[in-house]
């Protein structure tokens, strides 16, 4: 038994125990403890590998002469760490008061545990068959999590399923193509055969892989399913899915494409017909568009959950952008962004869930002024949005800085501009989020609201604290990133606790954070100690152009928050992709109905007869 076997066993028994005893009142806390044990086990694995070496699992078997085996290297470990921490903290969130209010908490516990187990399997796959098994398990586990609520959620989950099926088919096709050529399912055999593969085949395989995994990442143009599917999932599960689930696509893309093929090959891999575009530029611009377009779709949302999930899609583009630059700094930036994003996105989603728990809605047009009622949730959301927007001193800034910097060093200024446009759009959008929920005037219906209970506040605060500490001391997170980067076979980015020292401009977040707080301190001295004493007034004691304000006067500005901007860019939001997708969905529905009808039991004997006749005919003819 290796440490990885223990981890699998622990994860599997978590699933089984929750399946059996998930209805018990303390099941939530048990789940937290189980994830904590898995985390300890995972940390024990850390000692077991270095560089490209992986910790093997003793569990393996043969199918028709092909070996399936599992093992965890630094890259898988990096993703597994995020997965388990996200599962632990979101479970802690749902273990207390929130979970007691849920009708199907049993199912939610099981779904979470199944997801973690499936992801661990995927993250340790060592050949194409185990990768495919893990991939399918992850897809179905996510479906299990999404479909719980029924109604709109089930619709969204069905939509997800269609996409996931298409992705699986593409993956299968790619794997079969590889097997036909090299007669093996092993990663190593594929990597060895790569230099002699013809460009056309490599293009086909690459496109199929990018399609298959891009669907999970919601890469453009497969971005439509994710926002509704994730936002309709119940609170804690949605936070987990948002933080890490979509990154599985990125992991798979890294392991099958970026690691073996390498950036050098992608750079000279010219596109058929369009020879001036190489594969790397294609990937970079796809990533940049994924960073921009979903961000501006997020800007238009009026539901807090939808807004956040659209940003999640956009941030996925950011990660791919860094990874596709292919320099040590770009790779480090992309990987670091995965970790950073998980920390604040989970916190943001939990904060929004807390708001829904108290106020009953996430509709940005029906909230406002909650800062006075839910101050801790406000602080979490504030720190979270600073991270999401990528401003100092939170960790989101550091990873984005690395990505900007790598683009600059690679002489790609237009991509840098594209990335910055995405960041600017994010700032606008997250301000709308926090303004419409927490700022402005409090509605009369919310006068008696209370702060969310401690069991919900604590996990959120831990998450934003992680986001803050890894922002001020990015060296901590970069050490973990090193493990993944070494496994990918790239040079490591030299770093120290505060950031990196680089010939063309350095970043030391210890100084940036210190100086920023020093400045805020001076501001505090100027503001608090000089001048007359301030006094706090009621929200109705406001300038209203001569009117008297009361609970009867709606005095909040939230709907259509950026009218000036929307008058210009509003027309740019085309519906073409949506229309194509709608057509495809109708087609799939039609097909499924046809199949459903033809599989009905009454016809079973008819099919049997038909099959018999065909077989007989073949025999007679033969």
């Amino acid at each position: 038994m290796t440490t990885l076997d223990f981890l699998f066993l622990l994860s599997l028994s978590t699933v089984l125990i929750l399946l059996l005893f998930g209805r018990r009142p303390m099941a939530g806390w048990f789940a937290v403890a189980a994830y904590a044990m898995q985390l300890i086990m995972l940390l024990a694995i850390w000692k077991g590998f270095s560089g490209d070496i992986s910790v093997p699992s003793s569990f393996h078997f043969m199918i028709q002469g092909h070996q399936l085996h599992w093992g965890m290297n630094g890259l898988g470990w990096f993703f597994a760490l995020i997965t388990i921490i996200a599962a632990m903290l979101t479970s802690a969130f749902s273990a207390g008061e929130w979970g007691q209010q849920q009708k199907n908490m049993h199912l939610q516990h099981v779904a979470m545990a199944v997801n973690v187990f499936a992801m661990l399997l995927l993250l340790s796959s060592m050949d194409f068959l185990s990768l495919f098994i893990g991939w399918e398990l992850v897809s179905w586990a996510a479906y299990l999590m999404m479909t719980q609520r029924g109604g709109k959620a089930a619709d969204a989950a069905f939509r997800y399923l269609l996409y996931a099926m298409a992705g699986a088919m593409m993956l299968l096709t790619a794997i079969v193509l590889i097997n036909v050529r090299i007669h093996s399912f092993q990663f190593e055999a594929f990597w060895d055969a790569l230099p002699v593969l013809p460009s056309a085949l490599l293009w086909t395989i690459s496109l199929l892989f990018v399609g298959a995994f891009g669907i999970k990442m919601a890469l453009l143009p497969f971005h439509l399913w994710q926002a509704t599917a994730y936002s309709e999932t119940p609170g804690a599960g949605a936070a987990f899915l948002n933080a890490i689930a979509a990154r599985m696509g990125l992991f798979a893309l890294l392991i099958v494409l970026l690691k073996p093929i390498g950036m050098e090959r992608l750079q000279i891999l010219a596109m058929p017909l369009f020879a001036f575009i190489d594969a790397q530029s294609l990937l970079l611009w796809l990533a940049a568009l994924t960073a921009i377009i979903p961000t501006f779709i997020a800007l238009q949302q009026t539901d807090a959950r939808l807004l956040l999930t659209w940003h999640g899609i956009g941030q996925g583009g950011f990660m791919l952008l860094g990874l596709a630059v292919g320099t040590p700094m770009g790779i480090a930036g992309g990987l670091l962004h995965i970790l950073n994003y998980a920390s604040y996105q989970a916190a943001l989603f939990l904060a929004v869930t807390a708001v829904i728990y108290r106020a009953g809605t996430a509709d940005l047009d029906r909230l406002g002024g909650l800062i006075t009622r839910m101050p801790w949730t406000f602080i979490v959301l504030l720190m979270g949005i600073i991270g999401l927007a990528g401003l100092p001193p939170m960790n989101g800034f550091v990873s984005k800085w690395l990505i900007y910097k790598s683009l600059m060093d690679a002489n790609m200024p237009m991509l840098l501009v594209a990335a910055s446009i995405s960041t600017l759009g994010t700032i606008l959008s997250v301000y709308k989020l926090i303004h419409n929920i927490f700022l402005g005037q409090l509605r009369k219906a919310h006068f008696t609201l209370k702060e969310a209970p401690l069991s919900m506040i604590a996990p959120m605060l831990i998450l934003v604290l992680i986001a803050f500490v890894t922002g001020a001391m990015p060296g901590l997170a970069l050490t973990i990133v090193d493990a993944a980067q070494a496994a990918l076979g790239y040079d490591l980015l030299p770093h120290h606790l505060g950031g990196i020292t680089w010939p063309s401009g350095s970043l030391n977040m210890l100084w940036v954070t210190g100086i920023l707080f020093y400045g805020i301190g001076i501001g505090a001295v100027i503001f608090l100690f000089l001048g007359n004493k301030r006094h706090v007034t009621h929200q109705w004691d406001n300038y209203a152009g001569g009117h008297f304000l009361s609970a009867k006067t709606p005095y909040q500005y939230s709907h259509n928050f950026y009218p000036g901007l929307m008058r210009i860019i509003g027309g740019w939001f085309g519906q073409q992709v949506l229309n194509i997708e709608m057509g495809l969905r109708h087609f799939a529905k039609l097909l499924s109905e046809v199949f459903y009808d033809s599989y009905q039991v009454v016809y079973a004997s008819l099919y049997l007869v038909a099959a018999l006749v065909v077989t007989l005919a073949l025999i007679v003819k033969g």
Partner: protein
Amino acid sequence: MNTGELLLELVLMPLVAFLVGLLLVLMMRKVRAKIERRVGPPFFQPVYDIVKLYAKKTQISHGYMHDVAMMMLLGGYIASEIFLPVPGMDGVAHQADLLTLMYLLMVPMLGMAMGVGQTANPNGSIGISRALTSMLAYDIPFVIVVAGAAIHYGTTSLPTIIEIQQQQGLQSWGLTTMPLLALAGLMTMHAMLGKEPFELYVAPAEIATGPMVEMSGKYMGTLFVMQCFQLYTVGVLYTTLFLGGGLNWLTFLPKVFAVVLIAVSITNVYGRYRTEDAVRWLWKWPVMIALAGLALVMSNV
């Protein structure tokens, strides 16, 4: 550099910024007065204004975020000023770079937005909606300018950028080596200052629809202090990027004043753009000029 010098710089840099900022505000008012054929305010008028605002009896707060926002917006500018190298003082300028500064400059904007949001006045929120829209508008050309300048100098380190420009005097200034980017930079810096024709979100003439609607007493005073910092920061940033910084304060300050003078002179002969017109204008001219400048820079790399 020893600790004593560093501490001295940390105290001196914001102080210098404030004093120069006061002078810049004074210049702005004097220029406007001259254009309108008035005498203009006395030398100490900016100081009187701040003292007056801080000493007002009514100081209305709308909650703790309203107060914290005031500290955030001062803090963001003070931090930016400490990271901007000026003659004789660049102690911590090596710890951050141009990209950091670009995003650090958005912190005050976010702080302002948070504070105004807490004041719970829709008129303020409308102002912020316009302010953030214009931030999106001017930051896109600004990013292109920054990217072009960084590619041209081959670095984002601010002290190195100054060093490169001081090697051959006027010939190596950013203004002469990349005039198109310098021009686009001047346009975006102007919009960044929020002066006419881009002052829709401040809208001083009709205070009821701007971010300042609930800002009284020392809140207004803090915004005044912020304006001093803002004029200084923008002037120094432009000087650093395109005018070769300065060997000493005697050559440095005139450049800063010249940059701000251009902005305030243009300001006074313009009316005001509506939000969408400002966005259109900024996405058309400065972006086009900056892209052309960037293309030139890229062809020389």
